[in-house]
């Protein structure tokens, strides 16, 4: 089969892919195509029906589907080619893509490949809960799909493990759909999701949140009957004598998201174990020239507004790459101390102003976030409190960068 040629292929038609496509087109790159596995464009936002999207972008608070539609409308207006029901199966380091759709196989050679494949949820396997395997256990995202897209109510008495935003949002959804949410249990001593979601999804409905707790057993035959929960100490060891039984027919797991990177290995794209996504430079280019990544495929975002922004920055750089065939070398590495969970990008050129995005590894109070090069502070930002649920941005002006040595990102305590 002969391959078609494109200037850019965008893998994934969620908010990241849509924003990248529109920006590429506006930068004069016209020979592009979006490939999307689902029957519709819009990505995970199609099922995120709650509001709170678009406050930064549009200055109003929209639901997920409305936010996505604004970008879908732009894709239509700009007459950007897209194919839904089309799954990319593989990408080679030479940027040859193989995709499959009901019409058959599709082979594409592309100057640039943009990975906006989103993220997936951690499942029971990746958190290791012992006990039976009865029906009634779902990840929060799957329960969200059932409830919001398929009109299937998964249960009546619900326990939620993990306090990630989707779990919190689902606690409210279940309550409004008439189910009783018994409690949310979180292993960490702090909530995983945003404080506003703890407030408006749990506190508003008197749903208790137990921190430093985990599920130690699952009980049931064909269907879930109860879970055993226990308190844990600072080392996450179960405290003896703290276990209790909670009757429930449904257990929802909201234990984290991981960037979707099934295609990366085949393309020789190296992944950062801290983000689960690719190592990228300031152009959002991965270690493989011409392959770019943004959105949840790169690192998990809590706000779609930032996904759109990131994808647009990617597109500006990708447009330059497509026109010139190369981008400036990014030889300055960014390294972090143990307080920092991860940072994006992991390398920069030093020739342009950049915005660094990072998360702390655990809650921190009172201190300063510093960037250091050659043992000197490039900048220092004081903070009162930093939490892992919040993405932090630091602007670094090129004038501050003095050499090509690595830049250290550290927390200094007061």
């Amino acid at each position, binding site marked *: 089969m002969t391959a078609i040629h494109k200037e850019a292929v965008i893998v994934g038609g969620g908010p990241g892919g849509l924003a990248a496509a529109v920006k590429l087109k506006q930068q004069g790159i016209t020979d592009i195509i979006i490939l999307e596995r689902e029957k519709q464009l819009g990505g995970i936002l199609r099922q995120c*029906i709650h509001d709170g999207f678009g*406050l930064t972008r549009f200055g109003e608070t929209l639901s997920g589907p409305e936010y996505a539609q604004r970008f879908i409308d732009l894709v239509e207006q700009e007459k950007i080619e897209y194919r839904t029901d089309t799954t990319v199966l593989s990408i080679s380091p030479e940027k040859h893509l193989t995709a499959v759709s009901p019409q058959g196989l599709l082979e594409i050679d592309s100057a640039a490949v943009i990975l906006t494949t989103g993220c997936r949820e951690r499942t029971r396997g990746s958190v290791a809960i012992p006990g039976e395997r009865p029906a009634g256990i779902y990840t929060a995202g799957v329960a969200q799909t059932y409830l919001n*897209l398929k009109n299937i109510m998964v249960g009546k008495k619900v326990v939620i493990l993990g306090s990630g935003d989707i779990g919190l949002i689902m606690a409210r*959804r279940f309550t409004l*759909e008439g189910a009783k949410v018994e409690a949310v249990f979180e292993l960490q001593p702090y909530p995983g999701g945003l404080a*506003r979601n*703890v407030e408006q999804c749990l506190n*508003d409905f008197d749903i208790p949140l137990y921190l430093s707790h985990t599920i130690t057993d699952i009980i049931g035959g064909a269907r879930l009957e109860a879970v055993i929960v226990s308190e844990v100490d600072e080392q996450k060891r179960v405290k003896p004598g703290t276990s209790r039984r909670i009757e429930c027919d449904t257990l929802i797991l909201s234990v984290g998201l991981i960037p979707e990177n099934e295609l990366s290995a085949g393309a020789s794209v190296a992944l950062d174990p801290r983000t689960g996504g690719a190592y990228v430079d300031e152009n959002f280019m991965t270690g493989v020239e011409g392959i770019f990544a943004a959105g949840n495929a790169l690192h998990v975002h809590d706000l779609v507004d930032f996904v759109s922004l990131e994808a647009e920055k990617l597109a500006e750089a990708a447009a330059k790459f497509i026109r010139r065939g190369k981008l400036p070398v990014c030889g300055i590495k960014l390294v972090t101390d143990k307080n920092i969970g991860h940072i994006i990008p992991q390398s920069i050129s030093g020739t342009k102003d950049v915005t660094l995005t990072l998360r702390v590894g655990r809650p921190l109070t009172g201190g300063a976030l510093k960037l250091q090069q050659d043992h000197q502070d490039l900048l220092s930002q004081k903070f009162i*409190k930093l939490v892992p649920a919040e993405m932090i941005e630091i602007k670094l002006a090129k004038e501050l960068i003095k050499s090509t040595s690595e830049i250290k990102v550290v927390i200094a305590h007061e």
Partner: protein
Amino acid sequence: MNRRFTCIVCPNGCEITAELDGGKIVSVAGARCKKGGAYVRQELTCPRRTFSTSIILEGGKLPLVSVRLTKPIPKEKIFAVNELIHRQKAQAPVRIGQIVLENVLGLGSDVIITKNADRLS
């Protein structure tokens, strides 16, 4: 007396400590913007919330279509409004912004469709 609030107006979710004197706000601390003070004032007088849910879509490509409130309503009215919304059905096709319930329960907020959905042809 001090009372703590988590502002829900934007994703920053500022933890605001309000110093109160017999229901009156003496001072607020911890808000990163002006909206925080207004939020505390509202929480003390009449807490308001928005929410989203979905309703049955008849004759559509999707079984359900999502809806939301256009403006926050008093918190204690959430369940009443939710029940009313659940009794509604929409007929495909529907478009974003289409009104399902106008001025729901006289609370000054509309219930609107938030997803485009075509007719099953």
